[in-house]
């Protein structure tokens, strides 16, 4: 085991697969000598050169389209979109092309394309640079979605993504890039569709996604001191979604809080909650509660930190369920 940051874990996964898959190509902007907007690609350009690490013009839609064209030609590709907010300028390529081609072309085309994009919800960069839009993509059949919260998850899931013949949206988080954790020295893959139980507990299940995980763990720790035993779970992938692990937790605790930075309305929490209700209605001791991003355009400045969930709001929700 080595302790590495999430940024480095992602870099390692890409580097290892660049070596193992000699045709694999990286597309994006600022991914060359600069090393990526948030430094995730450091060293790759130097080691793999401009043909495989293709820094390019600012046109996300065509960049994803080129990625699809490479992918259907059998050349695996990673496209980086610099902020998740910019998926908006490439939506057709992601949603109507990458996600659907395999199915509607009767299986003739496969799209081994990974789109990496970071959520920047806790950076204070304002309304157009702070969104956590994973729910949109979960709505679309044909896209796999990984949304890791630790270096270990990130590396193992990205390696799986890079071996998958399907389009994968790989959602990172700027606030987590410096998060450190143990990563095995030997190669490992984490299969999609396996939620992590990050802490076990018996009173309330707290499902946390991406940037909310550190505060969820802190909340659980503090609540333990108050005598409330919180189980913290991370779905790790949204499609496929490991509903069974979440449902088993609910069956044990009878109560669930779901937290994410994305807007509350029509967010991922609503879907998880509904699935839990469908599967475990009789086990529910209380309504499932959301602690989500507020339904407002995220303002610039310090207020943004109160727009996303924090430890206090999570604890309040848990305590409320215990009454």
């Amino acid at each position: 085991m080595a302790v590495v940051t999430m940024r480095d874990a992602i870099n390692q996964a890409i580097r290892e697969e660049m070596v193992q898959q000699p045709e694999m190509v990286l597309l994006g902007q600022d991914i060359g000598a600069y090393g990526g907007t948030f430094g995730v690609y450091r060293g790759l350009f130097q080691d793999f050169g401009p043909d495989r690490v293709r820094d390019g013009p600012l046109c996300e839609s065509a960049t994803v389209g080129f990625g699809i064209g490479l992918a259907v030609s059998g050349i695996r590709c990673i496209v980086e979109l610099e902020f998740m907010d910019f998926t908006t300028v490439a939506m057709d390529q992601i949603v109507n092309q990458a996600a659907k081609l395999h199915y509607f072309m009767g299986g003739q085309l496969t799209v081994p394309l990974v789109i990496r994009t970071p959520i920047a919800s806790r950076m204070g960069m304002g309304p157009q640079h702070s969104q956590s839009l994973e729910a949109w993509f979960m709505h679309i059949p044909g896209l796999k979605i990984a949304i890791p919260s630790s270096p270990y998850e990130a590396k193992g899931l990205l390696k799986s993504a890079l071996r998958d013949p399907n389009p994968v949206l790989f959602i990172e988080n700027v606030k987590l890039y410096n998060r450190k954790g143990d990563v095995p020295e030997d190669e490992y893959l984490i299969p999609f569709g396996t939620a992590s139980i990050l802490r076990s507990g018996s009173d309330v299940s707290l499902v946390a996604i991406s940037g909310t995980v550190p505060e969820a763990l802190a909340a659980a720790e503090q609540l333990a001191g108050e005598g409330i035993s919180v189980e913290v779970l991370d779905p790790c992938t949204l499609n496929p979604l490991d509903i069974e692990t979440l449902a088993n937790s609910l069956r044990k605790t009878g109560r669930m809080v779901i937290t994410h930075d994305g807007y509350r309305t029509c967010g991922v929490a609503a879907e998880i909650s509904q699935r839990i209700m469908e599967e475990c209605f009789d086990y529910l001791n209380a309504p499932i509660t959301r602690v989500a991003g507020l339904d407002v355009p995220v303002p610039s400045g310090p207020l943004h930190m109160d727009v996303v969930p924090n430890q206090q709001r999570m604890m309040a929700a848990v305590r409320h369920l215990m009454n």
Partner: protein
Amino acid sequence: MPVATENAIYKLLEMYRQMMTIRYFEENAIELFAKGLITGSTHPCIGQEAIAVGACAALEEGDSVLATYRGHGAAIAKGSDPKQLMAELLTRTTGCCKGRGGSMHLCDKKKGFIGTNAIVGAHLPIAGGAALAAKMRGANRVVLCFFGDGASCEGEFFETLNMAALWKVPLIFICENNGYAISVPTKLSQATPDIADRARGFGIPSLIVDGNDVREVKEAVADGVARARLGDGPTFIECKTVRWERHSAFSSGRYENPEEAQRWKTVDPIPRLERILLEEGADLEQINRERVAAQEVVNDAVQFALQSPLPDMDSIYEGIFAEA
């Protein structure tokens, strides 16, 4: 009067048969739609056959083609079996896409026909990526992408021009300027008459050809293909043509001026190729033979399609994801 070699005549006759196959194919599609056998819509390329056929005639088997929903002709010209294509239009399990794609979503990977797309402009960068793949593999392959005048107002078109020029990918842009996007005439969608001018702004060699002259199209594309194989990057070819039919069997896209539509029949690329054939020394019998052969191919395709089963719901969840 120049008399062509037998080989040249043979090639012209082959193009003629392909054009007739496309014409019959489309006429049948319109009829089958009217009978309710094609759901959604179908977008005939009648009157534009010379572009698909001329362009694909300049390619080799290992080259690739992408086209739009109006790309039945492109699929046929690239060598796809009309049976599987017609079956796909009728969404039968024997269709090239197992009946899921339908009229707007054809694909025949083995033949290098990467497929048609129903989002205007979206296939352009995909074609660019396929061309980049060809370049990276260094196998001297080229990619050809058909699209319309309407598509050439979409942002992705320009993004692709820019990337293709920058990375010098072996991509031939074939703009089928048929004067309309559904009902919108080009004069309402662009300030200047020629789309080729726009490609020039990116440093891409660009030319305009008579899209109803199959030989002219073929020659222009052959030059572009040669450049691409030499590693000199993309070429842009604007083929001026006309759309005879309504935009699609579903939506009328009627013209401003019905006389205009009438006049267009005078530029029909098929009689035009017949005249060329006769000039070059072919005889009427040879021409008729190809016509009959085309008719038969399409009849067989229709029969095949009609006799094929529709998919059922048991398979609905199959193939959303590819297996590893």
